[in-house]
């Protein structure tokens, strides 16, 4: 079996390497932690600290791949899903292929960064000044988005990309498992556009794992607050990734 994991910074393991290797990392403020993120060549080590690393240990006979992109918005995750699925299909034509998609924030917009010559996701909500300092374009992009692109349009593109991925992979004989860290029903309860609401409901009905989001699952299981489960820059602690891996294995084996 091939398991392709795609997603964003949670799946890329941002903060997890620091949690393990930077003294007192967990007690830093958000700004301090942001400035202590390590940009060295530890990408694979980071990824192995996530649920994908736990998957590899739990299921050594599965081939598990992690193609997460830290700041990705939905279209990037969707494109990666499709392209990596197709790549694996050609490399391993006899194997069953499962795509596990950790879906990004809904309020993230993809834009082309001419400085890095690559796509990035930018939050359409207020982002902190120290983040903007590292990426000055973000401010102009945010202004552009806030003026011309509505939250409803971003939401529509988000959900349609999910469904587009599902159609591509399922019609090619694969399986897609979507999950989200957050509960879209609660987080976006103020949606008023009926089309967005209908797409959101369709998305929620199609989630195979965590209908209420990963953070809800962890809070309920361990009886802890959100503050207790997260690192300074809001990603969940490494120990909780094991739960995600267990849940994924359980879902796959129960089909």
């Amino acid at each position, binding site marked *: 079996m091939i398991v392709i994991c795609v997603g964003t910074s949670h799946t890329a393991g941002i903060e997890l390497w620091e949690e393990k290797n930077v003294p007192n990392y967990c007690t830093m403020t958000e700004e301090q932690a942001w400035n202590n993120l390590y940009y060295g060549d530890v990408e694979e080590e980071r990824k192995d600290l996530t649920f994908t690393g736990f998957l590899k240990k739990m299921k050594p006979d599965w081939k598990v791949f992690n193609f997460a992109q830290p700041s990705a918005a939905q279209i990037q995750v969707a494109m990666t899903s499709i392209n990596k699925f*197709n790549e694996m299909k050609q490399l391993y034509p006899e194997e069953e292929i499962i795509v596990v998609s950790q879906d990004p924030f809904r309020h993230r917009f993809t834009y082309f960064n*001419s400085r890095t010559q690559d796509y990035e996701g930018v939050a359409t909500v207020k982002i902190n000044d120290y983040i903007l300092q590292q990426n000055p374009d973000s401010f102009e992009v945010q202004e552009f988005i806030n003026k011309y692109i509505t939250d409803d349009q971003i939401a529509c593109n988000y959900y*349609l990309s999910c*469904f587009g991925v599902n159609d591509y992979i*399922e019609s090619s004989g694969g399986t897609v498992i979507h999950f989200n860290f957050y509960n879209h029903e609660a987080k976006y309860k103020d949606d008023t556009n009926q089309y967005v609401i209908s797409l959101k409901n369709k998305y929620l009905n199609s989630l195979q794992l965590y209908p209420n989001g990963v953070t809800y699952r962890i809070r309920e299981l361990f009886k802890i607050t959100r503050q207790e489960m997260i690192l300074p820059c809001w990603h969940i602690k490494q120990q909780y990734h094991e739960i995600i891996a267990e849940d994924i294995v359980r879902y796959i084996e129960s089909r």
Partner: protein
Amino acid sequence: MIIVCAGCSFTYGSELWEEKYTPGYLDIKTQYDAFVSTRFTKHTDKMEQERRELSYTGTFKKQLGCQVINVGIGGGSQQEIVQKLLTTLITVKKDNPNERIVCVLQDTFPNRSWIWQEQFRQNFSIALSQIELWYPGDKLEAYELKDLFMKYIPEELMHSEYYMSSLAVQGYCNNNDIGFMHFHIWDRQYAIITKTFDMTNLWEAFFDERYCVQEPMLLKLNEHYNHSREFYLPGLHINCEAQEIMGGWLIEEMRKRNLI
């Protein structure tokens, strides 16, 4: 059987009512004049219905004798078209659970986007290549907007979202036992424009001949009319006769795919 058709002005029937009923319309010389002439005309409900029936969807109704719902949007971007289409399909499916439903999507041009215009407090579909024609606000603002799009939203990003939305409709139809077919008016000039994304797989999925009519309709019409431009209207839409011919071809394509 119910056929639900969606698309841009070619489905909506732009210029067709004018061709039939507006004296002197065919004498208009420029696309801009045609655009101005039709865009600000007051459209009655009767006019709108007649217009839609003059499109290829009217041919479906005449030749197949079934109910045809035309939700084409003049100037629509793919996002706007898919929104209208999906909301219509959901309602039609719910209201007619035992009817055979077929969906025909006329894909529009990928370089159209759907933007919010603060002055008019509503969304507008705009074609970036002709933004000065389409933008409802200040023209200087239109050019600034175009620059921002060119800078931050390259064509391949617009195309990837365009293809994804079509696959989303395809998936919805497949999961709800609705027949699905889509076709394109213009040629595949939008094929792989890769800057950073590898679009090959998405492109191939979009042009899957199980669902996609392979030959672009304008190219086929060009051949049919021996490369003369007689079937074009002043605003560069196709005339009523060409619409009827196209409707006949699309019916054959639906039959080939066992949709009807």
